[in-house]
C-alpha cells in the first residue's frame, strides 16, 4: 500500500510499504477514506519530538471502512464506516474505566521510554513516535487499529467524510479545551492560536455559553474565520495582546485563556527571542510565549486551559505569577473517546459544521507538498484533508 512516511527533519514522502495485518485479537483493519494533517504532525515533521524513526507512517486523524476484524472484536462489523480517535485506549484499565482515555495504561507497547521522560508511561497515539507506542499512522491506504471495540465510532454511511473526520482529534480537542475552562454563561474566553484546534475551541466556547471570545493570531485568514462565528480578534503583530484584553475586560482579564498554540509559539519580546535561540541550538524544543502570555492575561482565579502540545522543559516560566493569581491549569491530551458521540450528535443536529476549517483538499501523493504548505502557512492554508478512496 502507499503510505506517507517520515524521512528526516522537514522531509516526508510517499512509500510503498507492506499492508497492515492483524497483530492482536482485538485489532481491526481500516481502509482509509479520508485523513488530515494535524498541527501536531508539524512538530514531528520539524523533528521536534524524539523517538520518531525514518520510515514511520504518520497521521492520527483518519476515518474509513472496516475491512477486517480480529477474533475478539464483538461490536464492530466489517463494512461499517468509522472515525478513529487519535489516541489508543484499552477500555479496561483504571484510567479508561474512569473516562481518562488519553491516560490509558496498557495501549503503549513501549512504556519505558515515556516513563523515563515523564515519570509515568503515556498512552499510545497513532503515528506519533515510538515513545507513544510506535503504532503506524493513518496517512496511508490502510491502517491497523488496536482495541477496535473501544475506539472507532460508527458513523452513518451517507454522511460526508468532511463533516465527521475531525471527530478523530481537533474537534474533541477544541471542545475539551473549552470544557476545561468551566465556562459560566456570559464568560469571556481568550484563545491563543486561531488554527484548527483554536477554531474549534472558539466555537465550543460559544456552545458552552461564553459571552465573548477573543481569538489571537497573526494570520488574517484565520482571524477572519474566527470572526465568522462571532469571535473578536486580536492580531498580535498589530496590537498589544495584554493591553487589549485588559481594556476590553475592564482591567479584569478574561475569565479563562486557552493556549491552542503549543510548543512552536511565535511572538515578540525577550522570552520569545531566548526560546527561539535555544530551539535553534536544539537545547530546548519548547517555545512557550503564548502560554506565558495567557498566564499574564487571565483574570485572578481564572483558568488556563492548554490543548496545545508541549514536550519538554520550559524556562522563564512565570509560575510565581500563576501562583499569586491563583490560576487553575487544565491540560493534556484529549480524552477523545468521551466526546465523539456527543459531538457527532451536535453535527447531526446542525449545530456545527466542522468542515468550515478545511482550506485544502489533496491526494495522498500531494501530502509532502501539503506538509510544506501547512508549515509555511502558504496559500492561506488552515487545514488539509486528503481523500483516498
Amino acid at each position, binding site marked *: 500500500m502507499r503510505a506517507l512516511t517520515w524521512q528526516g527533519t522537514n522531509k516526508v514522502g510517499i512509500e510503498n510499504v507492506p499492508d497492515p495485518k492483524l497483530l492482536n485479537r482485538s485489532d481491526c483493519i481500516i481502509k482509509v477514506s479520508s485523513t488530515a494533517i494535524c498541527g501536531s504532525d508539524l512538530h514531528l515533521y520539524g523533528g521536534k519530538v524524539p523517538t520518531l524513526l525514518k520510515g514511520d507512517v504518520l497521521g492520527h486523524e483518519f476515518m474509513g471502512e472496516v475491512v477486517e476484524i480480529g477474533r475478539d472484536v464483538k461490536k464492530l462489523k466489517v463494512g461499517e464506516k468509522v472515525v478513529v480517535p487519535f489516541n489508543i485506549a484499552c477500555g*479496561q484499565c*483504571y484510567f479508561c474505566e474512569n473516562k481518562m482515555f488519553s491516560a490509558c495504561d*496498557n*495501549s503503549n*507497547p*513501549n512504556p519505558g521510554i515515556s516513563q523515563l521522560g515523564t515519570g509515568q508511561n503515556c498512552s499510545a497515539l497513532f503515528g506519533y513516535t515510538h515513545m507513544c507506542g510506535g503504532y*503506524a499512522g493513518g496517512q496511508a491506504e490502510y491502517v*491497523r487499529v488496536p482495541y477496535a471495540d473501544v475506539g472507532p465510532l460508527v458513523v452513518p454511511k451517507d454522511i460526508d467524510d468532511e463533516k465527521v473526520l475531525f471527530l478523530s482529534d481537533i474537534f474533541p480537542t477544541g471542545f475539551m479545551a473549552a470544557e476545561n475552562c468551566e465556562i459560566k454563561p456570559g464568560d469571556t474566553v481568550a484563545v491563543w492560536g486561531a488554527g484548527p484546534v483554536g477554531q474549534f475551541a472558539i466555537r465550543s466556547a460559544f456552545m458552552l455559553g461564553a459571552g465573548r471570545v477573543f481569538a489571537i493570531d497573526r494570520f488574517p485568514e484565520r482571524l477572519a474565520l474566527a470572526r465568522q462565528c462571532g469571535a473578536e480578534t486580536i492580531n498580535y503583530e498589530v496590537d498589544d495582546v495584554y493591553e487589549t484584553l485588559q481594556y476590553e475586560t475592564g482591567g479584569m482579564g478574561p475569565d479563562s485563556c486557552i493556549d491552542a498554540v503549543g510548543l512552536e509559539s511565535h511572538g515578540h519580546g525577550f522570552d520569545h527571542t531566548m526560546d527561539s535561540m535555544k530551539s535553534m541550538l536544539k537545547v530546548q524544543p519548547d517555545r512557550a510565549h503564548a502560554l506565558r502570555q495567557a498566564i499574564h492575561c487571565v483574570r485572578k482565579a481564572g483558568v488556563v486551559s492548554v490543548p496545545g502540545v508541549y514536550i519538554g522543559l520550559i524556562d522563564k516560566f512565570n509560575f510565581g505569577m500563576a501562583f499569586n493569581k491563583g490560576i487553575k491549569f487544565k491540560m493534556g491530551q484529549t480524552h477523545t473517546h468521551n466526546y465523539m458521540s456527543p459531538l457527532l450528535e451536535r453535527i447531526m443536529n446542525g449545530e456545527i459544521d466542522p468542515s468550515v476549517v478545511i482550506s485544502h483538499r489533496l491526494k495522498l501523493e500531494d501530502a509532502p507538498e501539503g506538509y510544506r504548505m501547512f508549515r509555511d502557512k502558504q496559500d492561506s492554508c488552515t487545514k488539509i484533508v486528503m481523500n483516498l478512496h
Partner: protein
Amino acid sequence: MAPKVNVGTFERTASVVLGGLALTQAISSKKSLVARGAAGSTALALLWRGLSGNCPAYSVMGMSSSKTPLTKPQTWIERSALVNLPLEEVTAYLTSGQSPYGIFVSTGSDIFEIEMDGRMWMINLQAHADGKRTLIRMSWDDPKDNPSLLDILADAREPAPRIIALRELKALLETGEIPTVEGQSHGERSNLGNFFEHFGDFIIEKIQSQTSLPDDPHINEDFPAKQSYLKEANA
C-alpha cells in the same frame, strides 16, 4: 544481581554520550570493517560502562569515582503494578493455567512462583484499599552475578523480562492480550532506526533498572529477593 557501581554520574553520562557517538560512527561510517569493528567495540564498552556504572579497569585498580551514598533497602521489591481487577479475580487467573506464562504455583497465602526465561519469579498480591484493584509486586532471582558484556548482549537478543514482563502481565490480566507493534508496516529504516527498534527496549530497561535498584552487591547479597519476600510474607 547488578554489577558494582564504581563510576560517578558525570563519567557515566560522558561514557554514554561518547559511546553513542562511536556507535553512530561505527554504523554509518564507510571506513574499513576493521575500523568500524574497533569503533563498535569501543562504543559498546563505553555504553556498558555508562549504563551499568561499572568499570572493569577501575575494579582491577581498586578505584572508584562514584559518590552515590549506599542506602540499605528494607525490602527488596523490584517492581510493582496496580491491576484494575479485584484480588480474587487476579488470583483465580494466575492459578487457573490460562496464563501463557504457565501455572503460577502458590507458595503461601499470597506468594506465587514461576520459572520464566531462566529466572525464578515471585509474585506477591495485595488487595488495594479500594477493594477493586490489586497490587502486584514482582521479584526474581537473577542467576548472573556481575554479568559480563556477553551476558548483556545475550539479554539484548532475548530481552530480560523484568519491567516489560510485569507490564505485559498487567495488560494481559486487564485486557486479555499484550499490545504489540512488532511486524507492522513501516517504510525504509536507517541503520540507526534499525538499531533503536531492536535494542531500544533493552537500553531503556537497563537505564531504568540502574536508576532504581540498589547498587551495592553486598547489600543485594544480604537481601536476596526471595528471602525478603518470604520475610515480608511471614511478618
